[in-house]
């Protein structure tokens, strides 16, 4: 028990790091994911190809490889940024591929009549997508996006091994201080459960508020 009380600030810092990573990477993933999803349904061929390549490559890339390439590779190009920003970039881009697929299948659940009605009112592609289809698709993608963001929070653990401050990384310090390693891990597990259960609760509320009734 005293593993937690003695090192409360260390655990707090780790948890905060994980939360920060998760929040920033989620925002990036949502923005890029929505953008890529609209690319993939766009009437312009080259954008469709770009979206498809983006999703196919990133979905099949091991996240460790992506971290390896971004955190250790980009500095060799002379791109020097704080490690945390690199981690957000890697996590966000990786997750954006999954968000994109969720949004795209959400777009497909919107009845065809909606798009047709918008078209017959003379709306452009941007207006049809932005004002008619996406808001309705948003309602049906709440659960899959929620589980994707939970996966993101869990994946953020990888960042700890690339010297970014986050929850899993705290075990190293505590191990050196000689604390019981089992209890160290139990509290780390509790920390992750707090983060994932919070996301799950938020999305449950969203689902109740806006979700499509089943």
């Amino acid at each position, binding site marked *: 028990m005293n593993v937690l009380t003695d090192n409360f600030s260390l655990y707090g810092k780790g948890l905060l790091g994980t939360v920060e990573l998760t929040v920033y990477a989620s925002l990036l993933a949502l923005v890029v994911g929505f953008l890529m999803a609209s690319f993939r*349904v766009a*009437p*312009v*061929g*080259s*954008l469709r190809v*770009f979206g498809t390549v983006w999703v*196919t*490559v990133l*979905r*099949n*890339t*091991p*996240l*460790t*490889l992506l971290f*390896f*390439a971004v955190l*250790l*590779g980009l500095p*060799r*190009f*002379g791109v020097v940024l704080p490690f945390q920003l690199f981690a957000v970039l890697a996590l966000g881009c990786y997750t954006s591929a999954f968000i994109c697929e969720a949004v795209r299948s959400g*777009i*497909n659940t919107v009845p*065809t009549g*909606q*798009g*047709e009605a918008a*078209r017959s009112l003379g709306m452009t*592609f941007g207006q*049809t*997508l932005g004002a008619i*289809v996406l808001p309705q698709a948003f309602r049906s993608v709440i*659960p*899959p996006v*929620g*589980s994707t963001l*939970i*996966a993101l929070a*869990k*994946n*953020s*653990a*990888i960042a700890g*091994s690339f010297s970014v401050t986050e929850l*899993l990384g705290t*075990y190293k310090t505590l191990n050196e201080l000689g604390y019981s*390693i*089992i209890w160290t*891990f139990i509290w*780390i*597990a509790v920390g*992750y*459960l707090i983060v*994932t*259960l919070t996301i*799950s609760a938020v999305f*449950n509320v969203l*689902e109740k508020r806006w979700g499509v009734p089943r």
Partner: protein
Amino acid sequence: MSDTALYDIPGPLARRRHRLYGLVSTVVILGLVAWVVYLLFDTHQFTAEKWRPFTYVGIQELLLRGLGNTLKAFAYAAVLSLVLGGVLATGRLSAHRPVRWLATLLVEFFRAMPVLVMIFFVFVALKVQPMPALVTGLTLYNGSVLAEVFRTGVNSVERGQREAAYSLGMRKTQVMTYVLVPQALRAMLPTIISQLVVALKDTSLGFLITYEEFLHAGKLIASNLDYGLPFIPVVMIISPIYIGMCMILSWLATFAARRQRRSPKTEAVEVAAAEPGTLLPGAGTH
């Protein structure tokens, strides 16, 4: 043509405009690619010195050994998680309440934990060798996700099948093994393969606990000062192989899905993809 009618079939004017947009976006994308290539040249990534290590047999063997270790860990993890998934799914579908509760608890816990935390726990706290630690972590996580996949599959077999089997006087075990599981497995094949892609991708986590897999071999070569730290060349060689392997497996999943959509043998099963690591009720599992 999109099936949500986001745009009409373009006329001559719109087609000209789309071609213009296409041209502009292609130029922008190509510009970005060219900029990256320029940066690569500018930072001397294509010098002979940095690519020379790959001509040596020793280094090629090092890479191949790493690839072999990755595939070995994947094979163990895949087989063991299929077994664990089967066991846990049986537990969750059991008629005995304590067994069901225990299995549910295990599945929910292992799905909610980051797989890396489990791997580190086994590696650091239980002081296990890297390879068994990696396989254990992957097995626990993917096994629980697969258990959920199996359970969803069995539950989504049309009710009539189960009822017909019971009315023929079959026992529960017989209903499961002769009627429900064969149909469910066939229908769930794409989802199972997609989960194996996740397992293959996650073998790269072994890099973080010093398991001598593919990425680890790459790191060894990349940190060699004699060849001017050939980091980017290593990434350029490793990533296509890694991504290619995962793509082949993903493609196999798509292929299986397309095949079974035509197959009359899976007609009685409403296929719903089970989301890995879902904590939301109603998402994926029905």
